[in-house]
């Protein structure tokens, strides 16, 4: 098993610190979900981990070898970024085939036949300019590049943004197929948590430039509970636990808690329910007192 590791990563843009002493370990052969709010530092973290952007401080290695300007490490990684319809000079006039040709040139394990299959599957016209594609089609192009790269560590940034439900299901199916056939590592950064949650073997939650959790998804969710009931009973049941997003309605109270370990023995008089990844993430973010951006 290989490890992509980032130690004490700091990234500053001018005076703003976007990543604050981040430590992260990506073990190969797993599917990771990277979750965070807009501006949490997801894209920056992925850019730094893949040497697309330099870190201000810190060390990034793959199996102990630096990733920065290292062919051996870079040839094992694909970070398929979101495409933009505009550049700083105007519309992005590159055609889809220009991106595919560049990918073919630079990804050492590029699978041209697979790329053609995917182009057909997502119904993409490769002669079209990027600026003329819909948001969903642009996402499909990044998915095609990521999957056909056949890179050992494949990273997708918001891959399902703009995709319709059929295309999203196709994407999840492709990821599962590819993972079961090759054991490739996938890191998927997404906002659509509920749909993708079952894919993630491990989940990484980033908030305000810091990694809050980095854990096996099942174990993580096994520690999370939604507790409701009379306010006093809820307070008593959750004493000593980290409480997120408390809501009160008259004498009733609802909270989300994250215990240190799975615990079914809460005090009597309260209702205990499991929490989905999306609801847990929502509760955690809301708890920080920062509403919708």
């Amino acid at each position: 098993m290989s490890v992509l590791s980032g130690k004490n990563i700091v990234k500053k843009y001018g005076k703003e610190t976007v990543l604050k002493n981040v430590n992260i370990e990506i073990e190969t052969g797993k599917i990771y979900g990277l979750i965070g709010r807009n501006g949490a530092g997801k894209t920056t973290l992925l850019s730094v981990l893949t040497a697309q952007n330099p870190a201000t401080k810190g060390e990034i290695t793959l199996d102990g070898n630096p990733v920065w300007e290292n062919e051996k490490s870079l040839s094992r990684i694909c970070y398929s970024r979101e495409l933009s319809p505009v550049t700083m000079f105007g519309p992005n006039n590159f055609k889809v085939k220009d991106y595919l040709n560049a990918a073919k040139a630079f990804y050492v394990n590029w699978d041209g036949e697979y790329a053609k299959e995917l182009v057909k599957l997502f119904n993409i016209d490769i002669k079209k300019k990027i600026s003329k594609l819909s948001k969903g089609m642009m996402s499909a192009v990044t998915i095609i590049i990521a999957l056909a790269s056949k890179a050992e560590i494949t990273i997708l940034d918001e891959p399902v943004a703009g995709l319709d439900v059929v295309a999203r299901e196709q994407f999840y199916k492709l990821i599962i197929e590819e993972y079961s056939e090759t054991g490739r590592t996938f890191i998927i950064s997404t906002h659509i948590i509920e749909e993708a949650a079952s894919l993630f073997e491990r989940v990484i939650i980033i908030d305000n430039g810091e990694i809050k959790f980095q854990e096996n998804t099942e174990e993580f969710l096994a520690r999370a509970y939604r507790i409701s009931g009379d306010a006093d009973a809820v307070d008593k049941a959750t004493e000593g636990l980290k409480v997120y997003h408390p809501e009160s309605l008259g004498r009733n109270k609802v909270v989300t808690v994250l215990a240190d370990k799975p615990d079914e023995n809460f005090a009597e008089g309260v209702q205990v329910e499991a929490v989905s990844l999306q609801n847990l993430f929502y509760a955690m973010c809301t708890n920080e007192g920062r509403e919708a951006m």
Partner: protein
Amino acid sequence: MSDLSKRAAKYYLVQGVRLFIAVLLGMTFVGTVWILTHFGETNYVESVFYRIFSLGTVFMIMMNFMYSVYSPGWYDSMVLSMGARRKDIFWGVLIKQITFIVCYAIFLSLMSILTSRPERIKSIMMSSAVSLFMGAAGIIVGHAVKKYGRIVYHIFLIIVLGVGSGSLVMLEHREHVFTLGNATKYVIAMAGLLLFVIMEFVIYRLNKKSMVA
């Protein structure tokens, strides 16, 4: 030379040839329009070829500059996002520019020989050197645009227009700052090459920390 360097070199070589073919098609279109417009006039073949030659040398310089401006924030950014190293991009861009200029210089030289005007080859060599220099300048402007935004590009264009207009006015009034006689083309070519080399050192340093835009 590593495998990645070879793949990057091949990719950029193809880009250089593609750029040449695109400009060549543009030139062919303009040339055809001129031929049709001047058909039947006295010495129209020589006149049209002279125009194409003059436009061709300007095209060589301007197109290399324009594409170079786009390079750091667009083309190279895409390549960097696909796992290329910064040093591969540095050498790749050089390969692309040199491929374009060499192809173009060969094309113009052949035209000069075919029209029995081999003395134009000196001008082509000078334009090639100036094109290299403008290509390097374009990359530096491109890095500045990437960092500070399009305002840099507009400022640069204003400076170029100012200097260009000033030069034209001086030429019109025969007010030369200095005269070089027969050595003019050689001096300009040498100055262009010297500035190109200096700028490449600057580009190498800028490239070392470049980021995906």
